[in-house]
């Protein structure tokens, strides 16, 4: 009886927390809606926002170049630092190896970030090509710059992976392998897989919060900034895909053993 009461209390507390979160989210959404509505009413602020966006689009290629130069220098710096640290590593000092792996993981994260931000800026600049006097040259410049980004990423990522393989001799998957992601995951041992599982779970939890917020932003954009239905549809499709992949995986792993037994 006491256990039942305890369970009831825990459930009550948890539900109360969820209700509070929902109210906070509703208030936040109302506030954002009010502010965006007020902003749209004020012609000067709207003009300001539009001009900021225009400047961003106009100089997208400059931002793209700056991003690549800064990130490339940062990656090379971190790679050199981790190499120097590895030279002094005695094979036992855990703090030292953690520092080395931290530097290499940061390089990996910077590369992923650069790819996403780089592609976004590169695409934004595409609208400027039409305004160019010599659109053919503009096309060539764009293609060369795009290739340059993937060039440095390929070199730095390759160096980083081969260095990681030197530190962990069990790693034998080449970064250029067409099925790299799959083979890399399969080659992980149980401890490493656990980290991947936890990270993936965090990603799912994070997306469960981010998707409604993105949906809200897309909807506010549609109402206040005339962005149209497309962003709303895209967010919905992304949300739907995420849920479908999750549900498929749950069914696959939940009923896999039962199906085997039935066979």
């Amino acid at each position, binding site marked *: 009886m006491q256990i039942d009461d305890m369970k009831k209390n825990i459930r009550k507390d948890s539900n109360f927390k969820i209700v509070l979160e929902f109210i906070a989210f509703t208030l936040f959404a109302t506030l954002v809606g009010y502010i965006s509505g007020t902003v749209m009413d004020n012609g000067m602020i709207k003009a300001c926002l539009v001009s900021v966006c225009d400047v961003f689009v106009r100089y997208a290629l400059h931002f793209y170049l700056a991003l690549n130069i800064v990130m490339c220098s940062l990656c090379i710096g971190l790679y050199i630092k981790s190499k120097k640290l590895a030279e002094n590593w005695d*094979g036992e000092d855990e703090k030292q190896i953690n520092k080395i792996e931290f530097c290499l993981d940061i390089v990996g994260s910077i590369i992923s970030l650069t790819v996403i931000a780089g592609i976004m800026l590169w695409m934004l600049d595409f609208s400027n090509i039409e305004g160019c006097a010599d659109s053919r040259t503009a096309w060539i410049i764009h293609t060369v710059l795009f290739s340059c980004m993937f060039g440095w990423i390929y070199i730095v990522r390759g160096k980083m992976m081969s260095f990681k393989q030197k*530190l962990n001799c*069990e790693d034998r998957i080449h970064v250029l392998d067409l099925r790299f992601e799959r083979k890399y995951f399969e080659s992980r041992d149980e401890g490493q897989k656990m980290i991947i599982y936890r990270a993936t779970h965090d990603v799912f939890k994070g997306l469960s919060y981010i998707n409604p917020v993105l949906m809200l932003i897309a909807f506010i954009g549609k109402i206040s900034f005339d962005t149209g239905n497309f962003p709303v549809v895209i967010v919905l499709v992304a949300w739907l895909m995420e849920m479908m992949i999750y549900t498929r995986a749950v069914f696959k792993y939940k009923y896999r053993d039962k199906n085997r037994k039935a066979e």
Partner: protein
Amino acid sequence: MPLKNHLKELRARLGVNQQEMGARVGTSRQTISQIERGDYSPSVTLALKIAKTCGVTVEEVFEYTEDES
């Protein structure tokens, strides 16, 4: 963590580093490090392999203690 372990001491007795220990039991250095820190409880198979490599029983490597909280 209710599962404590003496892997670090046993590894020191064997005179091997984490990388070598990992190679002996067929796992990575990171996993050995995680087990030593108590961040990860290994599977039964890996626990048996570790015990066999160290030449002791599983109970001598891993120790279950009741969680006081």
